[in-house]
């Protein structure tokens, strides 16, 4: 970026560091004690103890996830393999007459075989060439279907979790009207806390720029409390649970 822009940002940061001292000092003085520099003991951290021992079996989790996701207006499909999942998606894509499909750059998603099963459609892979010149956001805006592979899924809340990365753009699960989320059953957990505590364990360095929990199709009830689906994000969302 331009030299003077960089300079301006540095200048802002300098100003802000000085301001920070003042700001935090004011807090300490209002609380009538000196500034805290050590991490305080946190007697209540995270969910209540009784909650942390709640664990469902795989079957429980599958059922619960399905129920919750469907209640929110999403669709849940079970597949025994990626190939089977691919067949299902091919069928759907033909039904929807999808012209453009965009998927994350993951080997497992390549195994869906959509490039070959949908010759008429343009199947693209997010950021596959790591070319700065390609406008991937625009590609996502043009796509009819977005395909991702979830990093986690949570049964209790009926959620899919996806972490961003160079091969896993956030736009893929956001812009197209239809979303297919492939979920390896092994990544399905019972409680939201199981995923969240993992983030605490990896710490700041381990986190991507965007962590997204998706619990159904986009919705709003802002107009006379009348529910409408697909306001900004995808309106048709398939959670494809794949075993093996």
């Amino acid at each position: 970026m331009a030299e003077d822009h960089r300079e301006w940002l540095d200048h802002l940061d300098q100003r802000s560091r000085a301001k920070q001292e003042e700001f935090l000092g004011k807090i300490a003085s209002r609380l009538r004690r000196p500034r805290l520099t050590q991490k305080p003991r946190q007697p209540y951290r995270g969910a209540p103890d009784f909650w942390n021992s709640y664990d469902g079996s795989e079957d429980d989790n599958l059922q619960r996830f399905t129920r919750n996701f469907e209640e929110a207006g999403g669709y849940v499909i079970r597949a025994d393999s990626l190939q089977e999942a691919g067949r299902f998606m091919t069928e759907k894509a033909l039904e929807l007459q999808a012209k453009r499909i965009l998927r994350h750059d993951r080997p497992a998603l390549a195994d869906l075989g959509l490039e070959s099963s949908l010759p008429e459609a343009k199947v693209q892979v997010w950021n596959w060439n790591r070319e700065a010149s390609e406008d991937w956001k625009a590609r996502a805006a043009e796509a009819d279907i977005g395909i991702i592979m979830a990093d986690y899924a949570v049964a209790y809340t009926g959620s899919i979790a996806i972490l961003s990365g160079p091969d896993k753009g956030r736009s893929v699960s956001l812009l197209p009207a239809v979303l297919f989320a492939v979920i390896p059953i092994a990544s399905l957990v019972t409680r939201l806390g199981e995923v969240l505590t993992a983030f605490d364990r990896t710490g700041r360095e381990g986190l991507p720029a965007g962590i997204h929990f998706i619990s159904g199709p986009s919705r709003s009830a802002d107009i006379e409390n009348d529910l409408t689906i697909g306001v900004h994000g995808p309106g048709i969302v398939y959670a494809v649970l794949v075993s093996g």
Partner: protein
Amino acid sequence: MSAGKNSKRTVQERAGLALNDDFLRKAVRFTTERLRSGKRKAAEEHGNWDEWRERGRQIRLHTIAHLDYYLGLFADQARVNGVHVHFADTAEEAVSLALEIASKHAAATVVKSKSMVTEEIHLNRALESAGIEAVETDLGEYIIQRAGETPSHIIIPAIHKNRYQIADLLSEDAGERLAPETAILAGYVRKKLREKFLAADIGVTGCNFAIAETGSIVLFENEGNARMVTTLPKTQISFMGMERIIPSWSDLEVMATLLPRSATGQKLTVYMSGITGPKRSGDADGPEEMHVIVLDNGRSLQLGDPEFQELLNCIRCGACLNACPVYRHIGGHAYGGTYSGPIGAVLTPALNKNVAEWDDIAGASSLCGACYEACPVKIPLHDMLVSLRRRKVERGYGDARETIGMKAYGSLMSRSKRYHGFLRLGRLGQKLIVRNGGITLKLGPLKGWNRYRVAPGLAAEPFRERYQTLEAELRQGLQELPPEIAERMRKRIGSREKSAGGEEHGGRSPGVAGSSGSTLES
């Protein structure tokens, strides 16, 4: 902290307008009932709700009590992530920072996701004055932005508009006639805003929770517009009230359990996004530059104040609005500030500290406590309203007539003989105005009361006059106290003497310096 155009009218007058607006009342009632019952169902289904509330309360109390540490940690971590963190004492500073950033980027268009804090600082107005197009992208916010209005509910901002009004607004926006059907209206907004999302220079968000330990911010939403705003534009500015912070991701589980259920009855909002810095070098989307502006604007005033520090626990879920019978009848605009409902009734005077100007908002409550019962982090709003009223009186802004009345009350009630004498006088005097045991006269304090009721007359014989005869009658042939009952009573008295704390028989201890003594120390 401008008083806004609403300060010319009192809450009473604005409430009067609301009470006369049939559609508004029906809409508010329908919405609050839907959300209230949703919350109740969700809380019941989840179970152990009170334990979760207590947990939420403790986490928030702890964070606020150590706010300097956690904010400092957040800022340091966020900076390492590449975020430019700024601190603003006032709304003006926050706005000025935002304008500076916008001008450095020669921004023409800003897309915004729903953020009460940006409403509080009137950000849009400032952007527009600087010639920058500021587009609200939440469906409800977009609608009221077209109407030039402010939100009337924290969660459902356009609750006061019916579909015909919305169709009119959006048709004007579209330049063509749109049918008053939800799917069509929402479809139009989706298409229109797509273009804006893709072309905007800057994305602006609020912050539901900042995670101190990793320097992340978390956003809760159902539509996807906050995701759009944090994925597509090249620059992102997130505004954060200084109290909107928790220590860790595991603490987020508690907030994620309490907030969506309390707000709308959902297990989780459709999207919950954790943003940790701008895009990484290999990412092909996400902002290149990210700013977080931490705002005080009167919040630090609550710190160290035993009666109001707990106010900072608030997670802006709106459950208190849905529970409040007053809100249900008058809607959000009657409160005259950015925040409405019970939380608004306390927050607005607390943040603005000009007690006299926002005087009557604290009076618009029957102190029923429904807000406290609904609050997922147990903020004693009903106690805070009384504290506000007391401060107003202490500072000499009490209503003159009420003060005179209260002085008379105090004098009367300080001596039982005086009080009894007053009862006798009243009995005599009311002979002139009581008809069939009731008073319909609309005079003095009865003016408002008798607009909707028939007031009762004073009893011919007050209890204190009746007692002697009654006692004598009952004493004759008084039954023996059954031994089991006597035993129970003895046990009670006995245990009282033993334990210093005595027995508790239900309910909560009233709040001052924190109801459980842990407001400031945890």
